[in-house]
């Protein structure tokens, strides 16, 4: 695999039992770039994200064919062939995922602080309470949460959706992954918060050189935010390329229809 690639999906097919969702898709994620996965509902965007995390079997699905090659410190590993134990090592510390609904992504009966600490202690068991707190407060600042003390001691339902999504992002940042899969991270948020969250993700992308797969149904957002775009329809990739290509000379009728729907 080329050195500048972080993820390479080749001829991937996946689905649930008889229901084939992904049909032979291939695309690449270069290091340090944001790749937007655009398509209408049910076209397999989330399934792609879950396959990369090795989480598809959580929903009873499986990858039937193809490879998901991940650049693990210079070594190429195929995620579809890893065992659950090996996947646990990669999840979080290498690839992390942010979900649609931020408030239901946090355990309602655990304080935010202890949830974040748990993630931190996963990699570093001997870390002291105060060190952990410092690191967490630092990450809070990175995602624009300045009321750190209160948030640290709050339960998820005491905070707004935007705050919870920032917390989810800061949780991802704790183990500094090389790839973040953001699965419609702003769908449940209002426009202003949406813009803030995207700015935060962009900053992380620039600062940490972390690649992002940005899953969205909103082509407009993708055009503003991403470097590359992959357009999906019905479990197939209809077109992919850099933003300027897609925007200036769309080839597939579906892409043209998506573009026309923006303005």
């Amino acid at each position: 695999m080329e050195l500048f690639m972080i993820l390479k999906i080749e001829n991937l097919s996946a689905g649930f039992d008889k229901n084939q969702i992904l049909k032979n898709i291939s695309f690449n994620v270069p290091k340090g770039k944001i790749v937007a996965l655009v398509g209408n509902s049910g076209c397999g965007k989330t399934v792609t994200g879950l396959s990369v995390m090795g989480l598809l079997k959580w929903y009873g699905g499986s990858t039937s064919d193809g490879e998901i090659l991940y650049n693990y410190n210079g070594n190429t590993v195929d995620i579809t062939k890893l065992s659950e134990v090996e996947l646990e090592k990669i999840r979080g510390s290498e690839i992390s995922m942010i979900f649609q609904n931020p408030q239901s992504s946090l355990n309602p009966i655990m304080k935010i602080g202890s949830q974040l600490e748990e993630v931190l202690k996963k990699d570093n068991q001997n870390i002291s309470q105060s060190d952990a707190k410092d690191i967490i407060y630092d990450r809070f600042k990175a995602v624009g949460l300045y009321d750190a003390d209160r948030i640290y001691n709050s339960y998820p339902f005491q905070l707004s959706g935007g705050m919870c999504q920032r917390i989810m992002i800061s949780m991802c940042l704790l183990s500094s992954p090389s790839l973040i899969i953001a699965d419609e991270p702003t769908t449940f948020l209002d426009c202003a918060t949406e813009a803030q969250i995207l700015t935060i993700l962009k900053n992380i992308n620039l600062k940490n050189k972390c690649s992002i797969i940005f899953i969205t149904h909103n082509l407009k957002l993708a055009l503003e935010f991403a470097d590359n775009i992959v357009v999906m329809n019905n479990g197939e990739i209809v077109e992919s390329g850099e933003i300027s290509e897609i925007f200036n000379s769309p080839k597939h009728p579906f892409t043209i229809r998506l573009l026309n729907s923006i303005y």
Partner: protein
Amino acid sequence: MLWRTHAFGLGRGENILHDKRTVFGIVLGLAIIIFSFVCPLFISHGEYEIFYIKDGIELSGDYSLTEKGIKINSFVPPTASHPLGTDKEGRDILIRLMYGGQISLSVAFITILLEGLLGTVLGLLAGYFGRRTDELIMRFVDVVNCIPDLPVILILSSLTTNFSVNPRHKIYNLVALIAFFGAMKVTRVVRGQVLYIKEQEYILAATAVGIGTYRKIIRHILPNVMPQIIIMSMTGVGFVILTESALSFLGFGLPYPYASWGNMITAVSDFSVLAKHANIWFPAGALIFLTVLSFNLIGEGLKEALIG
């Protein structure tokens, strides 16, 4: 107070002390616990100490009935020295009620603890790992549920009598069996709840940030199942006390002269006691009733507060 119920994000999120019935249940439960475990510390007479009478003066301790003029002080009506009187063998009813309470309550608590522990572990395993583990555990539960528990307990109880096991230890067999059969119900409830919690997005999110299986089960799933377990246990306490009393009443529990509420009621098998000496059997029955009532009220209150 005790419980930040709102933290479960499910129930009405109210302080459980706002419900008068629950408060009544808690007070009643505490009173019974104090009565059984604290009061005996201040009384010099033992559980099966027999009171004698000689020339109108009451004696306690080791006496031989061959001594002239000495009699067992039996069927004493309630008086100042014996607030609830004495039974046929000259033993003080009130003292026996206290020691009987110790047996009933500790049997109930130990049983519930074991039952909850076994049921929770099995339920978590079945619910979380699914597939073959689930199939194996749940079919086992089904099979055990098909076995009528009462006959099995009765048979085992008579077996232990035949093998001359220390009567004090017989009670542990009871505990183990009631707990084993009860654990099957807990397993079902816990499994169902785990299946639901497992599908929640926060468990998926925890997996996605790399939380390990063990931690996920212990730190994320178990605390979310706790309300159900607590409620089941609280209502279960009442059930175990009733079972234990019923078994003791039938003579399969703790044998006389050891005291237990169940075997104190056995006195009604003597018709004259039933008719003339209500002070012997009524208090034990009332205590069983009140104890079960108290735990059911607490369980109901917790249920309202925790899961609505």
